[in-house]
């Protein structure tokens, strides 16, 4: 499928402080040439959130992790609009349902919009904090300052969802839902299947939304 084969091996950001973490390029943790893909290990990362706290994928070993690619100017994502998955309450509904299915599941937003919006990581962080306040977002928003994590995951749109199981295996990526409140929520379906110990199906649904710019 369009995004099934994901690029890059495990990645790690140095997290010596806010400025260092966001201006230093993400470094490869190893030279493993294998491409990440559905059924394989998800790329590792450590990024700063909008509060200056370092967050690593490895912090959540044993837990299902949901990643949502986010952009504060995108009308499907962090910009308040009748189509935003945040301002229409679809993310809140997902979080509520997800916690009922799996109370330990983790939901993280990642913003890789520095190149698209021509802002520094610090400026993007402020914009995201402002958007979170307006939209009532309480989940962490991680700043992918040099867009390396977006490249590693092959994130194409905001939103673009990735669901990783407790063993660090990528089990689903693609669309948040079918673009309406009454459409299937593929993200929730994946979390349910992982919790039940079954196969995730579908593993990919074509993503939709604003483009993620990584170059």
């Amino acid at each position, binding site marked *: *499928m*369009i*995004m099934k084969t994901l690029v890059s091996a495990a990645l790690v950001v140095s997290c010596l402080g806010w400025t260092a973490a966001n201006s230093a390029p993400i470094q490869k943790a190893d030279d493993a040439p294998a491409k990440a893909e559905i059924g394989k290990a998800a790329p590792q990362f450590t990024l700063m959130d909008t509060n200056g706290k370092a967050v690593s994928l490895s912090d959540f070993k044993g837990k299902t992790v949901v990643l949502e690619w986010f952009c504060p*100017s995108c009308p499907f994502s962090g910009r308040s609009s*009748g189509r935003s998955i945040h301002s229409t309450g679809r993310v809140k509904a997902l979080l509520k349902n997800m916690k009922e299915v799996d109370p330990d599941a983790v939901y993280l937003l990642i913003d890789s919009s520095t190149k698209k*919006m021509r802002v520094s990581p610090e*400026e993007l962080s402020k914009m995201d904090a402002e958007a979170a306040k307006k939209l009532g977002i309480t989940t962490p928003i991680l700043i992918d300052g040099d867009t390396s994590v977006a490249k590693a995951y092959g994130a194409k749109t905001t939103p673009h969802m990735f669901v990783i199981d407790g063993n660090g295996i990528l089990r689903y990526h693609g669309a948040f839902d079918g673009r309406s409140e009454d459409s299937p929520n593929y993200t929730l379906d994946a979390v349910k299947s992982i919790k039940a110990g079954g196969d995730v*199906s*579908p593993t990919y649904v074509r*993503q939709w939304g604003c483009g993620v710019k990584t170059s």
Partner: protein
Amino acid sequence: MRSLPSILFPMVLATLPGTAGPAPGDPPGTLPSSGDDLVEVRVLCDTTNLLPGQSFTIGIEYSIEPGWHIYWRNPGANGLPPEIGITAPEGFEVGDVLYPRPRVFGAGEDASYGYDGEVVLLVPIRAANDLAPGPVDLEFALEWLVCKRVCLVGAATRTLRLDRTLPGRESTTNPAEARLIRSWAQRVPRLIGSPQPRGFFARLDDRQHLLIRGIAGASKDAIYLPGGTPGVAPVQPGPVRGSVTNGRFTFDIPLSVEPENALGQPLRANGLVLLGTYERPRAYEIDLPVVPGTTSQPPAPPEG
């Protein structure tokens, strides 16, 4: 058709200090707050009055601000196609939207497909057989995503009033709009087999391949754009360049076939073969059922 979006607050990047500047070429502070300002829409019709049961064509003309683009039915790596909601009187039959050949924006797995400048999307309609005398109103609810570096949603509503032809009279056309609709209709890709190119499947390297062959004519390039059907896609995302030799083109496209991702829809290899240029296009629609693991008989070499 869902309700139109409401843009509730001005664009974030226009309100925060020290944030994104305008896109290249935009004077500071001129980035629009909604896609309404970036695309003008007009509803065209090739006829002015109708006979009962008459078939006619509507055109939705999008005039797009330079540098921005809207999307094809398969937007590619990102984006969304325009939404066209039509409310017609009872008994009218509204057909599927016909999309002219799109352009390619970007490259490789990041490529998206759509239109810049001007485009007319076409909608075939058939009037009710028991069309009553008097005016006929068609209501249009239009939405679009328009992107450059950032994306904005635009929306508009339009009403088209037509009249039922008086008894004993012929239907009359709108010559200017009919001409425009005809010219855009020529850019709508023709379905495979009319009479070429031909597509079939082969199993090579333990993977299903879509093979397409046809006559390139004077075209030096042949491009395949995947149609975005769930569960079937080229292994390498994005547009595929075909081989053109001696006036004939060939595509050999390794497919990823994943029934679990078909969302309950039939597996189909769907896409466009693009020849010629955007302005003088020749384009063919490929739409073939896929049975995982099977091959189909290659057709006879194309004539000519």
